[in-house]
């Protein structure tokens, strides 16, 4: 297994005081807390920091860890010396309350045995409800319109029969209900972490995330589409084809529309009790002036219209 440099993880020197360690932990915990953080690897980092803090905040464990020596490098292949913890008695008095289930093999090999009997709540035949777990499910905008089924593969740690954590992978088939929105949560009762003893399992919360769409943007239940139109379509009015998540529609562009004008297609957003709207935002697209004929046409327009687009800026 790989050596873990807890000081490096916490970003403190080996001579850091307990206060400095606590401050470093608070700072990192805020940065990587999965409820708060936007870092992609927040959950893994938060666990790593929690494990480092579990060792360094506890004077007993810290002293034991320190005597492994300062020459180990993070990631180096590591085997604990057979008698490394001789003479240490882990009392776990008040310091071993953390949830060690997700800690690394490295932690387990060092503190697993000395740590379990005293400190761990589950060791004494207790029953506790399993942790609620969280996962993200990526769906397409179209799935929100029609509903869908997704198969998810979730990795999670659970306690084996020997009381040691192990990594398990499982697949779930989940129905994505029609009308679900970005950032909403689907709760699957009893699909979270397994309980201890006779404790019931926790719940699994799936956070819905839309795969970024090449031309739709979603805000709540409303869907936005940037629709390119030719200058003459905007100026004279026209009926043009516009895509929607439920299929193309004919859209009437009113004469005299400026760029950025929003046309609302009521109820064409994400369905629900009060369905969202689809907003088509007009973008005036410029025809290229690549040929002599095109340039002549633009010049003709310039002469005829005598148009100053900066009139409102006073220049």
């Amino acid at each position, binding site marked *: 297994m790989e050596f873990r440099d807890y000081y490096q993880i916490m970003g403190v020197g080996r001579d850091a005081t307990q206060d400095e360690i606590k401050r470093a932990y*608070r700072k990192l*915990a*805020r940065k990587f*807390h999965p*409820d*708060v953080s936007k870092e992609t690897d927040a959950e893994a980092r*938060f666990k790593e920091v*929690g494990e480092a803090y579990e060792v360094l905040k506890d004077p007993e464990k810290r002293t034991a860890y320190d005597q492994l020596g300062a020459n180990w490098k993070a990631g180096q292949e590591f085997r604990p010396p057979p008698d490394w913890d001789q003479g240490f008695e882990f009392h776990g008095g008040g310091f071993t309350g953390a949830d060690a289930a997700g800690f690394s093999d490295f932690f387990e090999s060092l503190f697993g045995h000395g740590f379990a009997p005293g400190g761990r709540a589950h060791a004494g035949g207790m029953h506790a*409800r399993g942790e*609620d777990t969280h996962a993200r499910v990526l769906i397409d905008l179209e799935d929100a319109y029609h509903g869908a*089924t997704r*198969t998810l593969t979730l990795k999670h740690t659970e306690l084996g029969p020997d009381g040691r954590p192990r990594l398990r992978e*499982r*697949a*779930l*088939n*989940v*129905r994505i*209900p029609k*009308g*679900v*929105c*970005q*950032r*909403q*949560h*689907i*709760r*699957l*009762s009893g*699909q979270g972490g397994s309980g201890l003893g006779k404790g019931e399992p926790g719940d*699994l*919360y*799936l956070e819905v995330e839309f795969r*970024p769409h090449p031309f739709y*943007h*979603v*805000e*709540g239940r409303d869907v*936005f589409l940037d629709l390119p139109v030719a200058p003459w379509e905007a100026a004279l009015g026209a009926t043009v084809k516009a895509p929607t998540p439920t299929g193309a529609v004919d859209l009437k562009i009113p004469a005299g529309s400026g760029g950025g004008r929003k046309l609302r297609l009521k109820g064409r957003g994400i369905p*629900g*009790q009060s369905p969202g709207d689809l907003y088509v935002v007009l973008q005036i697209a410029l025809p290229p002036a690549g040929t002599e004929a095109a340039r002549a046409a633009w010049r003709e327009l310039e002469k005829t219209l005598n148009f100053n687009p900066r009139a409102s800026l006073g220049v």
Partner: protein
Amino acid sequence: MTDELLSLLSGEVLEEGVELSLAEMCRACRLPAEQLFELVEEGVVDPLGRDPAQWRFRGVSVRRVRCAVRLERDLGVNVAGAALVLDLLEELEAMRARLRRYGG
């Protein structure tokens, strides 16, 4: 394993139309009522209805409560601080959504 693969799970969308009474809320959040009172008092969740017997919690409250409990446990913030964090997170999320719309 195979069973899990075969069966299709349906869940409830917390943000949609789910309403819970005080008792249901305590069960869903695994919290004693006293602790839930404190969370209501500090504005972590805001039930409809005037007195606890008539309280109706929106489904999304479950998530806010559980998040507040985690913030208390992991970051050492108090209930009022957790309420503030939750409100700011919501605001941040709304702004991020707007930003995405403008291609940010």
